[in-house]
């Protein structure tokens, strides 16, 4: 169950065009690979979000501590040639430029998490060096991504009514504190301008 790079670019372009339509802030960037000078496309979204902080307790009960802390969230969706699937890297930092720890990130995204995801979360996130920027980013391990794509019934041979990249992203988005607008799932009922 894998996605080719060309498919990834097509789906990413589609995602970006809907993002433009609803002003969601995704942009399609290019990275020039120093080895062969090829350009590699990837999606980027950077957003300042006011987030509520929940303290993470061992019994997973919420306790409300602080409200509306502005947090800068940066998401990169790359194509992973080894796993032939999308690969998400992200970082969060406070407005003074201080990166948040993984525990802190979880305390912020906790609100979005459903019970079942909550239990599984540590299996998915690691901290790794970003392949383009050589700085540490959090990453959802790509082996999970192929798994999610499989669950969504994706196969590179099929043609789809829906965009599998969007389907995948909306599945994993709660884990990384990303909100995916409902209209991505139902792009036919487009929000009309004026």
């Amino acid at each position, binding site marked *: 169950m894998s996605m080719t790079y060309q498919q990834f670019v097509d789906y990413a372009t589609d995602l970006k065009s809907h993002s433009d339509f609803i002003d969601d802030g995704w942009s399609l960037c290019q990275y020039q690979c120093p080895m062969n000078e090829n350009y590699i496309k990837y999606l980027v979204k950077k957003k300042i979000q006011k987030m509520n902080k929940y303290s993470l307790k061992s019994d997973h009960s919420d306790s409300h501590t602080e409200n509306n802390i502005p947090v*800068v969230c940066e998401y990169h969706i790359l194509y992973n040639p080894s796993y032939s699937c999308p690969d998400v890297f992200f970082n969060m*930092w406070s407005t003074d*430029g201080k*990166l948040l720890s993984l525990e802190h990130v979880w305390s912020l995204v906790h609100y979005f998490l459903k019970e079942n995801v909550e239990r599984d979360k540590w299996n998915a996130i690691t901290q790794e060096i970003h392949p383009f920027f050589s700085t540490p980013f959090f990453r959802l391990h790509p082996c999970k991504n192929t798994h999610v794509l499989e669950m969504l019934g994706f196969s590179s041979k099929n043609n789809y009514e829906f965009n599998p990249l969007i389907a995948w992203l909306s599945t994993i988005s709660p884990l990384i504190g990303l909100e995916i607008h409902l209209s991505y799932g139902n792009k036919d009922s487009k929000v009309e*301008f*004026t």
Partner: protein
Amino acid sequence: MDNLPETASAISNEDYSKTSVHETLLRFEPLSSCLDPNFWFKVCQLKLEVDKLDEVHRPLIGYYTSNNNPYMSFDCSSFNQEVNDETSLKCIARGYCLNKNTIDSFKTCDKNELLKEFGGRLLDDFQSGRAIEDPSLIPTFDILMYTDLKRYIFYFWFAFPSFSGPKYCLNDTPTLLKNTFSPTQFDLLAVGFKNLKIHQRGFFGIVSTKEGYLTVMTLKEYIDFLKNNTENDSVGYLVFADPSDLLNNPGWPLRNLLYLILFHCPSIRTLVLKVIALRGSPTTKFSASMLFNIKLSSEMVLNQDAIKFVGWEKNSKGMFCPKYVDLSKTMDSTKQAKTSVDLNLKLMKWRIAPDLNLDIVAQSKCLIIGAGTLGCCVARNLMAWGVHNITFIDNGKVSYSNPVRQSLYRHSHCINSNTYKAIAAADVLREIHPEINSTGVVMSIPMPGHAANIDDHKNVDLLSKLIEDNDVIFLLTDSRESRWLPTMLSTLHNKLAITAALGFESYLVLRHGVEVLDVSSGEKKLGCYFCNDVTAPGNSLVDKTLDQQCTVTRPGVSNIAGALAVELFVSYIQLKYNVLANAKCCLGIVPHSIRGFISDFQQIIPFTPSFFQCIACSPTVINDFLNKKEEFLSNVFTNPNYLEDLTGLTSLKNEFENIQIFEMNDSDVEDSGTYSERV
């Protein structure tokens, strides 16, 4: 200047109340600063490599958007003076950064004077018309900072300088631009915006024909247009990219823009100015834009000294105070390494073993006796588990045969035979992970039956002290004799000792030292290395050729045994008291010993009981050492049979001459560093 009336400095209370009855005072939403982590990396680099001790006003670029975000953002590209990305939808602002040399000069400099200085620069840009040519000067900013480059602590205070007066009023309730503009007009607006140069996009003007056709023009063109038009209906629209996220309040950049307009077009101050606050992005044709009808003010302060400035940013608690950020975790490479190592370990805990006690592992002080193949391997595995304190004991130097098997050494350590293993190993650990607290002690372990060494008694005390000061003793020397004293002292101090011994293709890893009692009988349960054999250690090195003592083990054996020794230790300390053989902890069982045979790739975990006549751990020996130390030691070191006689082993041996003895054959034991080299 001449054409403006002289007025009092601020609107009096009387005036204020008069206007507020009918009209709403226009309030601006302030900007907040938003810094990217890479901004600070650039700050450090510039301070170290370029500015050094100069306190310069360095020009900087800030970015903001009209997307519901009242922030001005800064990253490493803020230090470039050219912005070439015309496709970017950001607006740019130009300002300065002042990096103070000392925390004192940061704290004591007069903040009011500074703001006056910043504001004076802005006023100069306004009066000279530079801000009209380049509107990115309008939403200006200043950063006052002090950077502690040793500790990666940053004190900073942003100012978005603006004029405290005059006051402006809303002519009516602000409305959505959609109520005024047609979709076609929005299209024209978006296209016009994209055609502007990036530094013109924050502030510009629109002129409309009677038919509703819109012309987008630069701020300079629009101001020239305003100067020639005084009719209220024909002045078009003043447009600015609005970072505000409040429906009825425009963002901070408008505050400076209005001042600039009033200054250059005094004739329009009696009019109601139509101001479009661009909100949204060109891709959605700024569909969330607002229209503000603003009554300008006839009050304008002209006496430069009387102009007051505002604009210091509030901190997160809403106070006018500098901010402070400690970035040592991400910027100090040492701390970064520590954080990453810790994260890896925590992930293991979170994922696999929630009850795993990593702190007790990290806090354990580990003594490694013998810095050879096993010692190097054990040290590396301890480090991988997050252990912070490691001490090596060894008296050997690194030799040419060592580096390929002993993972902490390099060829360079061997040259001139000058480097002691204990010292080299401790140094290399710090090279691998700077957070490690590692020490090397060059010392030979006194051995029974070896002609008395002058330092023996002193070394016994030193070793005893080291064992007492550590939490776990790894006994990794290569001969039975050298294991005797550390075994006895570990038992004496009731410390966990883990012995690893190697054969050509076999290994033994064994825990002892700490007293483990049978709950019912109160007897000592777990044996030491010597409990299993009935021969006291004599000078087994004397009669052997070098070959027999040297490296004749399969290379993998020591790596397996070293790794098992560390895993045994980590499992052991998860439990606290009386850890019986094969007791269960969160990681699995804690065996008493592990024996493995590489020839058939088998491993067993036998339990061996303690032996009451043991020459290393029996109460007879311990008591003799405690009661008459000097005499006991002299006897042990000079008389090869003393220990056997003391424990009654001699008579036992005479009784059972044909007893089968398990013992790791010394001739099979590899050179783990120290002791063979004395031959």
